């Protein structure tokens, strides 16, 4: 009996030391992650192709602590006044103690179909609500989850997009359109600017394309003139203005 009681005493002592010391060492290990240079975000890249705005933000975590970090999950959700716009996640299964892991956030926002919501985002500055959550395990014993919300200013790439005039010259069957906007985004708008005219049977009756390059915080103003298939004109016609296949605006006009 004495032997059993002694063995139990030892086991209890060891377990209590473990229970008390483990959280302290985990806290010390995690505090090393707060040192400068252990977590960083590299240069973000913004691209636009196939009607998808893509933002890629690479980041790294240097686990300078003495415990492995496991099941690391970062999630960012972007919401506007109408609800969720996009969600991105970055998952890292394990970062061994003393090693560096690289990953990136990729946010894709499809702007293929022009909705009032996308149009508002493309043409108005606003505040986007960002929901950020992070979770990770440390030493296979503790799991931490942090979630926060904050607002981030959104700068519209086609701020105050306005069609100044649509004039149809029946004598020459030419449609002239002038439009203006200001690039409030912090990246240049470099791509094709297309104008397509349709009749009310959705048949294309005119087309014009131009290359534009609008630097950040720069205004843009352009006037375009292109031929219309006069035989296909209807009482009500439409003209669509596109940037890289994304319809920015559709406006009705009468001959």
């Amino acid at each position: 009996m004495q032997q059993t009681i002694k063995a139990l005493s030892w086991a209890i002592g060891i377990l209590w030391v473990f229970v008390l010391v483990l959280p302290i060492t985990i806290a010390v290990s995690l505090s090393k992650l707060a040192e400068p240079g252990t977590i960083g975000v590299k240069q973000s890249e913004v691209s636009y192709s196939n009607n998808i705005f893509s933002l890629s933000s690479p980041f790294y975590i240097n686990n300078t602590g003495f415990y492995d970090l496991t099941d690391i999950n970062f999630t960012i959700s972007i919401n506007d006044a109408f609800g969720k716009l996009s969600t991105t996640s970055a998952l890292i299964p394990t970062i061994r103690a003393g090693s560096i892991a690289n990953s990136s956030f990729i946010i894709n926002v499809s702007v293929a179909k022009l909705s009032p919501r996308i149009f508002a985002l493309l043409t108005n500055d606003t505040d986007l609500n960002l929901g950020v959550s992070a979770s990770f395990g440390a030493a296979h014993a503790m799991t931490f989850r942090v979630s926060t919300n904050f607002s981030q200013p959104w700068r519209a790439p086609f701020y105050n997009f306005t069609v100044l005039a649509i004039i149809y010259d029946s004598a020459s069957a030419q449609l002239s359109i002038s439009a203006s906007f200001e690039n409030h985004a912090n990246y240049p708008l470099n791509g094709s600017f297309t104008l397509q005219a349709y009749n009310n049977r959705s048949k294309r009756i005119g087309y014009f394309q131009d290359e534009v390059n609008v630097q950040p915080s720069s205004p843009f103003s352009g006037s375009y003139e292109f031929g219309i298939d006069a035989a296909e004109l209807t009482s009500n016609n439409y003209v669509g203005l596109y940037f890289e296949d994304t319809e920015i605006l559709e406006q009705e006009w009468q001959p």
Partner: protein
Amino acid sequence: MMSSIEPKQRSLRERFMKFVPRIFKATIITAIVGIILLVFWVLLSGFLSFYPKYLALFAVLIWAILFFTFGIRVSEGTIFKYGFIVGRALFLIIFFTYATNGGILTLSTTGFEFTMEFIPILGLLIVASLLSMGQGILEAIEFVSEGPKD
């Protein structure tokens, strides 16, 4: 009549006098433990003042530790000591499971939420407390088998 009461009173007095050093010793040890816990209280109360619920739970833990420390010391050499040991282990299991919400603590303020999950550590703590209970029971059995000392 007087002669039959006097030995009984003497016996009670003797028994009380026998307990006085034990009570004194238990008080001293409880006071030392109390001072150590007071230091912890002072260190943590600044942080826990933002979370009054945890401050109250910490106070409950301190008072319970002091109670069991005094109880175990004062009942040294009696079967009650093991009752206090088992009771303390049982209290710690229930307390830590309740206070830590089963090993999941959540602190939230406006627009910010922090959750800490430490179920494996709580599991170890429960195992340690269960072993303490087992040890207390074994010691009580051994104590009884050796015969009463008091």
